[in-house]
């Protein structure tokens, strides 16, 4: 029983989007053959080890001097060819459902979001210019097309929310595309899957799927939390949740936080010091983005604890 439930876990996480379902179906199809071959090989191995053990024969007594059997060997060459052909065929059948965004033909709207991977946060840009950090919001049931990239001065990241499909790399100078269509409301988590530097492990992403109305409301009113999201997503991963310092220096009481000029300079250019390099986290931020951070920091400066 425990074995069965463990085996059931040997598959990608429960999908909540058609592309993730297609991947999971392909996985399960491949699993049929993987488990069959696994059981076959290990069973033969154990059976042979048991049956042909030495027992009372002499240590160096010759066993059957069989040099081969052409037909058998052809069989276990052809067998895998057939299995792999079936797998490839199944993958190609599932492929359109995995890679193609469902068309908007059904009168259904499509949402397009720009996803930018940066050291060490995700930035989302909605069609109306609204910007959010790390937490993506999307309406339920609507196909969402993601244009995934990274600024040319950054490094490679990889976008991955397991329940909503496979990953796609965010590569400087390249724009890749992926999509999802969440089937139920809720929050789906994931994180950057390509080593991108010191805080790669903190580069978390989440997708909050809400009702269409709720989403429209949020989108229309603009992201009121932008400043807070920027502080949390962009600054605290290195400087500590309350600015108490982490792999980077503490920010509590730093004059830079309340000096618009200095803040903008360091956010846009980063800084190279003897202790290490601060990436240019906001090299291409809009004025609104910079202001949002400044406003947030003025309202609630980091407490240090």
């Amino acid at each position, binding site marked *: 029983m425990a074995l069965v439930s463990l085996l059931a876990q040997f598959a990608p996480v429960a999908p909540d989007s058609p592309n993730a379902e297609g991947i999971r179906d392909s996985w399960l199809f491949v699993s049929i053959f993987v488990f069959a071959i696994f059981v076959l*090989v290990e069973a*033969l191995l154990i059976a042979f080890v048991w049956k042909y053990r030495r027992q009372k024969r002499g240590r160096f007594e010759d066993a059957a001097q069989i040099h081969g059997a052409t037909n058998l060997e052809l069989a276990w060459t052809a067998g895998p060819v057939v299995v792999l052909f079936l797998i490839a065929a199944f993958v190609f059948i599932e*492929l359109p459902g995995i890679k193609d965004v469902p068309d908007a033909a059904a009168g259904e709207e499509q949402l397009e979001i720009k996803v930018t991977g940066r050291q060490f946060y995700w930035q989302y840009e909605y069609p109306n210019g609204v910007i959010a950090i790390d937490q993506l919001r999307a309406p339920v049931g609507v196909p969402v097309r993601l244009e995934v990239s990274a600024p040319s001065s950054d490094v490679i990241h990889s976008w991955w929310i397991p329940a909503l499909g496979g990953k796609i790399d965010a590569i400087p100078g*390249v724009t890749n595309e992926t999509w999802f269509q969440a089937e139920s409301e809720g929050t789906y988590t994931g994180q950057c899957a390509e080593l991108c530097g010191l805080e790669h492990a903190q580069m978390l992403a989440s997708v909050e799927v809400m009702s269409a109305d709720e989403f429209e409301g949020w989108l229309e009113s603009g992201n009121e939390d932008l400043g807070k999201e920027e502080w949390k997503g962009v600054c605290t991963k290195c400087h500590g949740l309350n600015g108490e310092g982490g792999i980077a220096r503490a920010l509590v009481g730093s004059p830079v936080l309340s000096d618009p000029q200095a803040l903008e300079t360091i956010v846009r250019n980063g800084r190279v010091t003897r202790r290490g390099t601060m990436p240019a986290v906001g090299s291409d931020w809009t004025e609104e983005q910079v202001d949002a951070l400044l406003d947030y920091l003025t309202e609630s400066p980091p407490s240090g604890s």
Partner: protein
Amino acid sequence: MAARAEAAVPAWQRGKVASWLVTTDHKRIGILYISTSVVFLVLAGLMALVMRLQLAQANADVIGPERYNELVTIHGTSMVFLVGVPILAGFGNYLVPLMIGASDVAFPRLNALSYWFFLFGGVVLMLSFFADGGAGQAGWTLYPPLSEQQPGNGIDLQILSLHILTASTVAGAINFLVTIHNLRTRGMSWTRMPLLVWSIELYSWLIIAVYPVLSAALTMLLLDRGVSIGPWDVQTDFFNPDSGGSAVLYQHAFWFFGHPEVYIIVLPAFGIISEVLPVFARKPIFGYKAIVASTVAIAFFSMLVWAHHMFTVGLPISLQAWFMIASMVIAVPTGMKIFNWLATLWRGNLSFDTPMLYALGFLSLFVIGGLTGIYLAAFPIDWQVHDSYFVVAHFHYTLLGGVVFAIFAGLFYWWPKMFGRLLDEKLGKWQFWLLFVGFNVAFMPQHFVGLEGMPRRVYTYANESWEGYNLASTIGSYVMGIAILLFAINVLKTRRSGQRVGNDPWQADTLEWYTTSPPPPHNFDEVPYVTSARPLYDLRRRLRVERGEREPV
């Protein structure tokens, strides 16, 4: 003549240490290669144990991200370049001339140079920890732009080390090829050559084909980072997207090398298994020619599958489809080998000495690594599991469960040939079971945690439902640590009081067992005419006939 050559050795070179420093004897160089690699195996293994300690619990704070990224980088680089390739070069060095009935490799001095370059390259890599800015933190794959942006000299030293190791490895490969092609003894046609020698042949061809591509990619990377040559500061932008370069271009070049590299390591391990299984089954290998053909096929196709490491960079679907099919094609000859090995056991007279245990362990584990590879080859599935712990589990099943088990099979099997003494069987069996159980406890859970969304190369994780899997991994890794410790104890014990077992304790089939254990510097006083792939089997059989004993059925 050999005796006279030995007498000509100047006195200062005859000392216990000095004789090893100046040696050009392939056997001594082989032993140097193997023992140096084992030291690096221990070092890189210790790095893994530190990382496992950090990952045992969520949000742990044993080491910080900087240290972790250094360890993950140097662990990977060491295991591939300082353990996998050179330890098999060590087996090749020791065994190829003996197995083909030659007195040494074709270029003994070049061979010594290869070894010393290897040691030098390894030392450079280890010392990079002390470089300005610490060791490289961009992974063994050194992907730009990350690798180009790391300040300090860690990455530069990693590149330097790989350049030195490449020179060493390519020189070694040329040496193997010239040796195998020219120095085979009378009667040893290509179809009578031991399968380990065949695998070293293909290992060498692959090295010559793909290592230069690595060198090119690394040189471009180094130039991108900027170098000063005399008065000139050179700084290129091959892989720098900020100036129009392509980061993905590097990945193509790296994996054109990187995938065959896997087979460069795995093929000789296959060769070891093909030597050990028949001896402990008292049978010929099943389907000699099929195994040779599959080795050639694997080597060829391994150069056509590289982009299956790049399914998530956004290649056109048609390219991804090609690389999926090519990757699946390579599964066919690999499957052939597995079935041929199983058939070698069939109707055998099986003894379970330690080498055989390791060979059987190899079979049972390598199958798992091979099968999980099918998921990874199917590119839409790879979009889901790529760069997750599932992949970490997959390649450890092939490289640790596969190659390291084969290496131990080889060490236990040829130890009496190298040193005249048998490694302690009881300790050996304890080591095997600890390693086997520890390995599975460590790496089986990684499949599951990867599927749940844990990416590789993260220094920590916040998700507490991943903790159980990670804790199991950590426990398993320390059990493996104990197993390696037992091996060290075994070596010391055997040195002092190991059982002396004569020239041919396993009644084996290949020429290396025809000479004394350990062999004299010139290897053979005379070599019998080779009449099949099992010259010693033929010889024993003839002796029995001459003595008028009953023919075995």
